[in-house]
């Protein structure tokens, strides 16, 4: 039933956790630099990268069926459309 593929073990989890902590320290440090316009982009990129690590390893998405990837993609696209079209509207007012 399970364990049909080589799933993440303790060391993988530990490595993911260390990376997440390092990225947190990194994003706090970068925020102190006052990057101005690209500050939002940098912070959100780091956050998204952290989320992907949590999704893929802690939430096992990497080892799941394609269907799960497809479902996630569909929800992300839906949210992107909602946010994208709202901004499309407010930026041309």
């Amino acid at each position, binding site marked *: *039933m*399970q*364990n049909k593929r080589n799933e*993440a*073990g*303790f060391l993988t*989890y*530990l490595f*993911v*956790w260390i990376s*997440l*902590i390092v990225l*947190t320290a990194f*994003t*706090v440090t970068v*925020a102190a630099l006052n990057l101005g316009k690209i*500050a*939002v982009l940098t*912070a*959100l990129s*780091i*956050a998204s990268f*952290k*989320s992907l690590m*949590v*999704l893929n*390893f*802690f*939430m*096992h998405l990497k080892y*799941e*069926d394609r*269907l*799960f990837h497809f*479902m*996630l993609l569909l*929800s992300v696209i*839906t*949210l992107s459309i*909602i*946010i994208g079209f*709202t*901004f499309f509207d*407010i*930026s041309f007012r």
Partner: protein
Amino acid sequence: MISITSFSVEKHTDYTGSKIGMWLFLFTEMLLFGGLFLIYSTYRAKYPISFHVAAKDLNIQIGTLNTILLLTSSLTMAISILSIKNGSRRGSASFLMITIIFGLLFLFNKYFEWGEKIAHGIYPGSEALSVIDSSIVLFYNLYFVMTGLHALHVLAGIFVLFIMFVLLLKKNINRHDFVKLENTGLYWHFVDIIWIYLFPLFYLIT
């Protein structure tokens, strides 16, 4: 005559189905928080300076500490599931309890963080907020609603984690049937992901 006892009692389970159900629930949660993120980002685009000024007053140290607490709780949650897969019920229960403690510590910090703000007269509908710029008020209202809804999710998570802890002790969750624990883990990690976005948006981008 067919006797009922001649049928083997078979438990019908659908491992993948259970997980799909949980993921679908998480997607609705994503859209719930997504709506709030949308409000945040549109008003941030409209009042960048007010958001900049207001966000400076949030405590980055507490925010960072809470981020580390939640990330670490995700690690212990993952190890808890790993333990039950390897057949260690005691290990699984222990790491689950550690996860619960990290969750409680997160809420403990949140309590002090909010308490400090409220002591300074900053809370939705407060008098101190009624005299300052409405766009700064907007930031604080979003801060309280979004971190509040997130804290509520952490609280609900702790509650479910505790139920799983009891089920583990009762051997209802065991090495052959642990999808409940896995789904609880999915929820816990999801709450972690929401915080991963809330943290920079409220505390860091100033």
